[in-house]
Every structure is written in C-alpha cells, then in structure tokens.
C-alpha cells in the first residue's frame, strides 16, 4: 500500500512537486494548511457568532413574535435540508478517505455526489425563498405580516416589526450560509476537476482535506440554524 510513507524520509533530492519552496518537508506544509484552515473556520465561527448574538437577544425579547414568524417556515423542508447536508458530509468524508487511499474512482464519485447534494440543498432553499417572496415575508418596504397570531395565544397578533427582525435574521443567516454553500460547491467543482486529472494521491491530498473541513463546518452551522430558525415553539 502506498500509505506506508514514513514522515521524515522525504529527501531534498526527491523534492515533491507540490512542496512549496519555503517549507522544509511535506508534513510541515500539510500541518500548516490544516492549522490555517482551522483558524479560518474560527474566524467563520465569530462571523456567524455576531448574528447568533443578535438572534439570541431578540429571540429572548420577542419570543412569541419569533415563534409566530418561525412557524410560517416549513419544518419539513428544513429537516429535509438538514438530512441532505448530513448526507453530503458523509460523501465528503468518503472523498477524503478515497483521496488518502489513492482511490481515484471513489474520490470522483464522492465529489460528484457531494456537489449534487449541495445543489439539492440550494434548490430546496430556493423554493423556500420563493415562497417567502410570494408571501411578502421578505423584510423591506413590501413586508407584510399582519394578523398572524402568536402560537399558543390565538387572540394575540404578532408584532409586525418584531417579526420583521426575525425574517431579517433568517434571511441574513441562511443567506450567508447559502453563500458559503455556493463557495463550497465552487471549490468542490475545482477539486473534481483536479481529481479527474489525477492530481491527488496518498502523498498529496491536502486540498481535498481542507475542502472537507470547510464543508463540514458549513454543515455544523446549519445543524444549529435548523432548530433555531425552524423549530421555535413548534409544539403549540
């Protein structure tokens, strides 16, 4: 098997074609890339963190209005999308595994599946957005949210402004998440292209690993967004 490469046996004379000039050995390069990726994901956490902070404050202040607004979403579509992303995470770990084992066909297959699942997610998201547009639930001048009762309080109507804050956060959070998905799909398309040309092998597969980390991170964000946005007070 080719994974018997022992770290430290890379000789200068066998300079790996993918080793950049300023690194001493491939292991150092790979470790740098993975640390860099993790730190980047840390910045992403804080980026979404500001939104989660705003969400937390307004959800606590306007719980009933948030519940009313949340229940205009379809939890079925949200749950489906969660399942789609979880499946795509599985195909991503398969891709990383295949790249490390040098299994080109499996790698290409997993990448294709991942991209398809990514598009499936975006497709479902797009139908949800379209519905929101039709119902005038998009914040802005034409926003409408009148006479929607607060769950559990049939005679109390949700506050339009507070519901608009919910939808603003909904669109910004899921919109940025979708943007990350689009970037991820773009990156995976590039990976697919590179894998097709046989660039990855057991010695060099860092881009697949990094792409995988990114994809899983985007998955994790959704794992939180789903219950926070779709499942507020659903039992009422």
């Amino acid at each position, binding site marked *: 098997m080719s994974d018997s490469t022992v770290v430290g046996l890379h000789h200068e004379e066998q300079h790996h074609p993918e080793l950049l000039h300023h690194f001493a050995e491939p292991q150092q390069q790979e470790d740098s890339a993975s640390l860099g990726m993790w730190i980047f994901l840390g910045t992403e956490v804080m980026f979404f963190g500001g939104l989660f902070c705003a969400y937390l404050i307004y959800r606590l202040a306007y719980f009933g209005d948030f519940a009313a607004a949340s229940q205009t979403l379809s939890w079925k579509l949200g749950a489906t999308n969660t399942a789609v992303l979880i499946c795509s995470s599985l195909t991503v770990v398969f891709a990383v595994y295949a790249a490390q084992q040098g299994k080109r066909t499996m790698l290409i297959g997993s990448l294709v599946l991942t991209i398809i699942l990514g598009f499936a997610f975006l497709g479902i998201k797009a139908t949800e957005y379209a519905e929101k547009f039709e119902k005038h639930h998009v914040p802005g001048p034409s926003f409408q949210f009148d006479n929607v009762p*607060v769950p559990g309080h049939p*005679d*109390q*109507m*949700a*506050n339009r402004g507070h519901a608009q804050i919910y939808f603003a956060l909904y669109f910004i959070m899921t919109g940025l998440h979708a943007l990350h998905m689009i970037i991820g799909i773009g990156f995976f398309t590039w990976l697919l292209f590179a894998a097709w040309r046989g660039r990855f092998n057991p010695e060099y597969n860092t881009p697949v690993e990094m792409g995988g980390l990114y994809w899983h991170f985007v998955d994790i964000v959704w794992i939180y967004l789903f219950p926070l946005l779709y499942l507020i007070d659903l039992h009422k």
Partner: protein
Amino acid sequence: MFDNFPLWPDRASAAAGNVDALFIFLLIVSGLMSLLIFSALLYFAARYRHRRGVLAEQIEGSTPLELTWSVVPFMVFMVIFVWGAVVFFKSRTPPRDSTEVYVVAKQWMWKLEHSEGQREINELHVPVGRDVKLIMTSQDVIHSFFIPAFRMKQDVLPGRYTLAWFRATKPGTYHLFCAEYCGTQHSGMIGSIIVMEPAQFEAWMSGSPAGPLSASGEKIFAELGCVTCHRADTPGRGPNLEGIFGKPVQLEDGRTITADENYIRESILDPGSKVVSGFKPVMPTFQGLVSEEQLNALVAYVKSLSQPAATSTRTAAATQQDNSRGAGSQVQ
C-alpha cells in the same frame, strides 16, 4: 485670567463633589505611580548609561517582584473600582421624591417639560437644593444630556426612557451639551441650565402658569379613549391603572415586571408585548399616533395615579383644566 483659561470646572451639584474627590484621589494615585516609574526610568537611564568596558549585568527576573507589581496595583485598582462604583450608583439612583422633568431630544434641540407643565427649549430652570429627576427620550438619533458643572451625563435614546438626576447646589448659569455625536449641528445642540434660589424659582414658575403635565396627560387619556377600558370604578377590558406605578406587575407569560416609565411607554406603543396577567391582548398600538410629548404626558398621568397626593393634584388640575368633559368621565 482664569475666566478665559479655567483649569477646573464649576462644581454646582451634589454629585460633583463626589466625582471630584475620586478624580483627585486618582490624580494622586496616578501621580505617584508615574513618579515611581519615571524616576526609576530616569535614574536607571542616567546611572546605567553605557560606559566603555562595563558590561550589563544579566538578571533573569524575579517571580516575587512580578507578583508584587501585579498584586499591589490590582489592589489599588480595586479600591478605585469600588469607589467609582459607589459614586456611579449614587448618580444612577434618583431619590424617591424628586421633581420630574421630561426631556425630549431631537436633532438639534432639547425640549424640556417640567411636571408642573412649564415648557422650555434648550434651557432648564431649576431651584437650588431640590432633587431633579430627568426622564429622557429622543425623537430621532442618540443624544447625550451632559452638564459638566453637575458631572452628569446620560445618553438619550430613541424608543425608550433613560433616567438621570441631580441636585443643584450653587445658583448660576451652566452649560448643557449634547455629548453624543448626533449629526451636522451636533455642536449647536447646546443650552443652559439656570440654577436659581428657591424663591426666585417659584417666581419664575408662576411667571408662566401652565397646568401640570399629568393633567394634560389625563386629557389625552380621555381623548384617545383609554378611559373606556382602563377604569377604576368597574373592571374594564384593561387593567386599572390606579396605584400600579412602581409596583410589580404579574404578566400573562408568568414573568413579573416592575411598572416603571419604560414599561408604561412600551405598553402604550407595543401593548401586545407584556400583557398583564388576566387580560386579553386587545389594546391597539398607539405607535405613530402619539408624539413623544404626549407620551410623556400620559406617563406623567399614569404616575400621578399612584402618588399619595394624587387626588388633590388631580382635583386642582381638573378645576384648572375646566374643559371638554364632565367630571363624571374622570377616572377616580
């Protein structure tokens, strides 16, 4: 000379002395600290300047010394913190029987209204020795009500009330500034605080007679039809407002909240958000229907319903404001 070049601001309120005392303490502490650091620095710089053939003596460090100069400053800091917190708490807690002045800030002017009804713009007349509580809100952006001579500052926010208070101690005219940047004419949003002797102040007050704010609030209360639901005589569709101000209120969702100025304000503008237990959320919003000034009057009126002397004030108000409605429709 010091008219044009003062080095210390006027001290004209009860709080000013507290702030100045802490400030002077800090001046001394930081003076001593910088004296210590700078003299050590200068002494070492002179004593250990480079001399040919003399090598520096290497010293690794000293944990006891490090701990000393971490812990000792921290103790000093804690003294400052506690002192500062005490001064702050005092400046944030208006005494119970303060006179109230409602402040509405807008780009770029201050509108002030005494609870006795006198209105002023960019000027506030107050007597010496009386506690004055400011109930402030803004019509547009964030402003900040700043009286340097009173060492008093509080941001004035749109959409809610912020409170501040002072007790003037020295007659005179003092600056009022807007301290939070609020747009083009920010530096023009200034005014004066005129502190007068009580007798003079009474004379000034009677010079411009006006009905108390709570009376105009009562009028608005009736005009907007609030009285039809918020009744004191029979159980209405809304809670009886008599005596609720400052008391805890049990809400529909189980929370308990103190009925303060902000709660009354919110209940008028967003009635559905904090419904009193046992009532239905049927009250319509008055957002956009009442101005900030009318809102202040309504708040003043609801508050007057909880004051022990309320009855007498209201009767006085009712006789003064002898108009538009019979005594029968009054909330009792």
